[in-house]
C-alpha cells in the first residue's frame, strides 16, 4: 500500500500539480484497465506514461500511430531465418508490459482494431497461432482532440475497451513555473527509482480485486447506472460492462485508500473518467458530473 503512495509521490515530482490524474492512472493500472489520455500535444502525456512505466518497473514500448501503420507493425511478423532455415516470429511492440500507443486516432481502423483486440483478449493471433501477451499488459493510448484532420475517430464501441479516459489539462501556475525552471518533467526521469516490479504489481492487482462490494454500494451503483439511462440527455446509457468497469476501478481506488471494501466516495472518484467516454451527451451543456450530484447515496 505504502509503495503505491511512494509511486504517486515519485510521479508527482515529474508531473507537477496533477495529483488526481496520477492517482487515477495508477488506479487504472491496478484495476487491469487500459488508459486513454486525451489532450493537446505537450501537456506531458508521454512523460506521464514513461514515468509510470519506470516507477512500476514495467517493460515499456512506444508506437507512434500513423495512417500507414499496419497491424503487423504492432503484433509482429514471421520471418524466414536463413541460418536456421525456419520461420521465426518477430514479436511486435505489443509484446511489452506497457505499450504507449501515441495518437491512436491517426491509424487506420484496421490497425486500431488489431490493437484493441489485443487489449481485450490479452493475446494476439499471428498466422493462426495465438501468442499470449506479457503479464501485466497495460496500454496507454493518447489522442489529440483538436487536430482531427486525417484522423479516424475511435467509435464508442471501441472506446469501451479503455477503462478510463483522462484529460491532463494545463498545469497550475506554480507547477508550470517549476517545469519552466527545469525542476520537473522529463529532466528528472533518470533519477526516478523503480518502486514496483511486475510481480508486485500483479499481486497488488489481485489484492485490490478482492475488495468487498456491499449490498448498499451495489444499489448505489445500480442507481447511478440506471440514471444514465433515464436522464435522457445521453444517446445511450451505461452498459453492464461499463458497470463492471466502474466497480473494478472503484475497488482499486478503495485499495489505494487502504480499505478492503468499497464506499460511495470510491465510486464517485472514478466515475467521471470511467463513464465520460462511454456516454455521448446530446448537448454539450450536460455533464457526467451532474449525475453524481443527482443520485441519492441511500435508497
Amino acid at each position: 500500500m505504502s509503495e503505491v503512495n511512494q509511486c504517486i509521490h515519485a510521479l508527482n515530482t515529474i508531473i507537477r500539480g496533477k495529483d488526481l490524474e496520477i492517482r487515477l492512472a495508477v488506479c487504472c493500472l491496478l484495476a487491469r484497465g487500459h488508459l486513454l489520455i486525451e489532450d493537446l500535444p505537450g501537456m506531458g502525456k508521454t512523460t506521464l506514461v514513461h514515468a509510470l512505466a519506470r516507477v512500476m518497473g514495467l517493460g515499456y514500448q512506444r508506437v507512434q500511430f500513423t495512417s500507414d501503420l499496419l497491424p503487423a507493425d504492432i503484433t509482429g511478423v514471421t520471418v524466414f531465418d536463413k541460418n536456421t532455415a525456419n520461420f521465426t516470429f518477430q514479436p511486435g511492440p505489443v509484446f511489452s508490459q506497457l505499450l504507449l500507443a501515441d495518437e491512436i486516432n491517426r491509424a487506420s481502423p484496421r490497425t486500431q482494431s488489431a490493437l484493441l483486440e489485443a487489449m481485450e483478449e490479452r493475446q494476439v493471433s499471428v498466422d493462426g497461432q495465438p501468442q499470449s501477451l506479457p503479464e501485466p499488459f497495460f496500454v496507454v493510448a493518447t489522442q489529440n482532440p483538436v487536430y482531427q484532420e486525417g484522423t479516424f475517430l475511435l467509435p464508442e464501441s471501441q472506446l469501451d475497451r479503455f477503462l478510463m479516459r483522462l484529460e491532463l489539462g494545463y498545469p497550475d501556475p506554480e507547477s508550470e513555473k517549476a517545469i519552466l525552471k527545469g525542476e520537473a518533467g522529463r529532466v528528472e526521469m533518470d533519477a526516478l527509482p523503480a518502486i514496483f516490479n511486475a510481480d508486485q504489481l500483479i499481486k497488488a492487482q489481485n489484492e485490490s480485486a478482492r475488495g468487498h462490494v456491499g449490498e448498499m454500494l451495489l444499489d448505489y451503483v445500480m442507481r447511478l447506472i440506471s440514471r444514465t439511462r433515464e436522464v435522457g440527455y445521453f444517446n445511450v446509457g451505461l452498459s453492464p460492462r461499463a458497470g463492471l468497469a466502474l466497480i473494478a476501478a472503484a475497488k482499486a481506488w478503495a485499495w489505494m485508500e487502504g480499505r478492503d471494501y468499497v464506499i460511495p466516495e470510491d465510486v464517485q472518484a472514478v466515475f467521471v473518467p470511467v463513464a465520460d467516454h462511454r456516454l455521448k451527451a446530446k448537448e454539450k451543456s450536460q455533464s457526467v458530473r451532474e449525475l453524481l450530484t443527482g443520485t441519492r447515496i441511500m435508497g
Partner: protein
Amino acid sequence: MLSDAQVSRISTLWLIAALLSVLFPIWKQVPLLIILTGCLSAGWRIAILQGRGHWPPFLLRLGLILIALVSVVVSFRPLISLESSVSILAAGYAFKLLEMRSQRDALVVVYIGYFLVATAVLFSQTLLQTLYLMFCLVMLIAAQQGLFREMDTTPVVSSIRFAGLLAFQAAPLTILLFILVPRMGPLWSVPLPDNSGRVGLTDAMTPGDIARLSRSDELVFRARFAADVPPAQQRYWRAVVLDQFDGKTWKQTDKLFSVAAMSQKNWVSKQPVTEGWWKNRLGSYQYEVMMEPTGKPWMYSLGAVGTVAEKSYFYRTMRLASEQPVDSRLLYSLDGMLPRARSVSMPGWLVELNTRIPVVGNDRSRQYALRLFNQAGEDPVKMAGRLLSLFRQDDFYYTLSPPLYDQSSTIDQFLFEGRRGFCAHYAGAFVYLMRAAGVPARVIGGYQGGEFKEDENLIQVRQFDAHAWAEIWVAGQGWLRFDPTAAVSPQRIASGLEAAIGPAETFLPDSPLSLYRYRQSGIINRVRLVFEKAEYQWQRSVVNFKQDQQEAFLRSLLGDKDFYWRQATALALGVSLILAVLSLTLLYRRQSLPPLQKLYARFLKKMARKGFVPRDGEAELSFARRISKSDDTLAEPVMSFCEAYIQAAYGENGSEMHELKRLLTRF
C-alpha cells in the same frame, strides 16, 4: 385468471391441510362415517399427488356420496337440523376435494371451507375455538392464494405469513361491521343444536346423578357481583326445586299446581311478590349471571330475587326460570336476596304435597323418623338438628363413588346399611325422614360454592359444584335451609369438592388433562386464571353483543334521534374511511429502512440540528470530513462514528449495532 388449468401440488396440499383442520372443530357434530370419508378423501388425494393413486371412478364417487347421505339420514332425528346440514356440507367439501381437477373446482372447495368455518361457530363460541377458526381461515386464505401463484415453490411459512397479513388487513373492517351492522333475524332457519346430550342438572334427581356431574369440570355459569360477595357457606345457587318423590327419584312438579286450584298466574310471577301469604325479604347482593346454554329452562339464583330478569319468571318455590329453554349463552342481572323468604302460613294442599311420600317401602326409616320426631318433642327444627348430628357422629361417609342402592327401599338401604353417599343421598334421606315425620320438606338442586376470582369480583361455577340440599317448612319461620352434606363433610361447603373427597378418590377422574386438576401447580394455575378471565371478557363483550346490546351501545354512542339513519351513516362512513386508509397506505407505503440506515438517518438528523446537511450526492465519509473540517469539537466523534458506520454498511463485517449506537450518543 381462473382456468381449467390443473391445481398445483402446493395448493392441493394446502386444501388438504385446510380440510383436516376445518373438520376438527365439528367432529362431534358430524357422523363419524363422514369424518372417515373426509380423511379417506385426503389420503386418496395425497396418493394421487404422489403418483400412486388413480382418479376415483364414477361409481366409487357415487358410492361415497350414498354412504354419506345414508349416514346422515341414519344419524339425525329430525332429519332437517343444523348438524345434518353441516354434515352434508362437510361431506361435500371432502368429495369435491377428491374429484377436484381444475382451478375452478379448487375455488369451490375453498368457498365450502369458508362456509364450514362459519358453521363451526354455531356449535361453540369459546375464545379458544375462535382462535382456532382464525387459524383455519388463514389456512384457507393460503390455499386460495396458492391457486393464483405462478410459482410452486413458495415456502409454507411465507404463505402463512402472507395469508395472515391479508386476514390482518381485513380485521378493522370486520370489527367495524361487527359493531355496526344491524343484527337481523334469519329468513329461514334450521333447528338449533340439540342440547339433550349435555351434562347438567335435570329436574329429576336420582341419587347418583349429581355424583356423575361431579366428574365434569365444564363451566356452568359465572356470576359477577356488583359489590359484596356472599361467603363460601352462603353460596347456594338454586336451580330446581324437587318436591315429588316416587321411592327412587325426586322430581320437580310445580307445573302441576294449577290442578290444585292454584292458578299459574299467582304461582309464577314476573315480579317477585313481597306481600300476601308469601313474603320475601330483600337481600343485599347484586349480581350478573352469564350462564352457559343448558337446553333447560331454569336459571341460577341465590334464592329469592328482588327483580326478575327479562323473559323469565319467578316461581314461589323460589326458583327462576326462563320462558324458553336456554339454548344459547344467557346474560342476566339480578338484584338478589338471600334465601330467607318467609311464608306466614302454607295452604293445605301445599303442605300435603310437601309431605307426600310413597305409601310402601322404607319401613325402618318411617319408624325411625317418627321415633326421632317424638324424641325431639315434635319440633321440626330440633328433629332436623338431631338428624344432622346423626349424620355427623355416626359413621356416614361422603364419597364420590357411593355403592348402588337399588332395592325397593333405597332410603333404608342407605341409612342403615351403606352409609356412604353423595350430597343427593343425604339430602334425599333427610327430606324423606322429615316428610315421614309429617314436616313439609323438599330437596333443592343446584350448585354450591364456586371459584371466587377476587380481581374480577366473580364466582365461576362448574359442573362439579353441583349440589343438593334440603329445606323444611316451619310455621311462622317459613322455609329453612338444612344441608346434611355440611354435617357429613364440612369441607365440601367451605372449600369445595376437591377438598372434601378423601385421598383415595381422584378429583375429575375422567378429564386427566383438565387444567382445573392442576390448580396446585403455580404456573398452570396462573395460565388457567388468565385464560378464564380472557374467556369471560370474550363471552361477555363479544359473543354476547346481540341485537339488544348492540342497539343500546349504539344509541349511547350515536344518540337517539334518527337512530337508524345515524347507524346507516356511521356504517357507510366507517367502511369508506377504513377502505380509504387501507388503500392510501397501500399507495404510500413507506419502505421501512434497514436498521443501519435508520441509524444513519438519526445521525443526519442530529447533524442537521447543528447546521450540517449533506450536499446532493455527498456520501457519508465526505460529509463527515466536511463537518470535521468546519467544527473541531465534532471532528473526533463524527469521524469515529462515520468510520464505524461505513465499515458496517459497506464493509458488511457485521459490526455491532450497539457500538454504533454508543458512538451516536456522543454528540
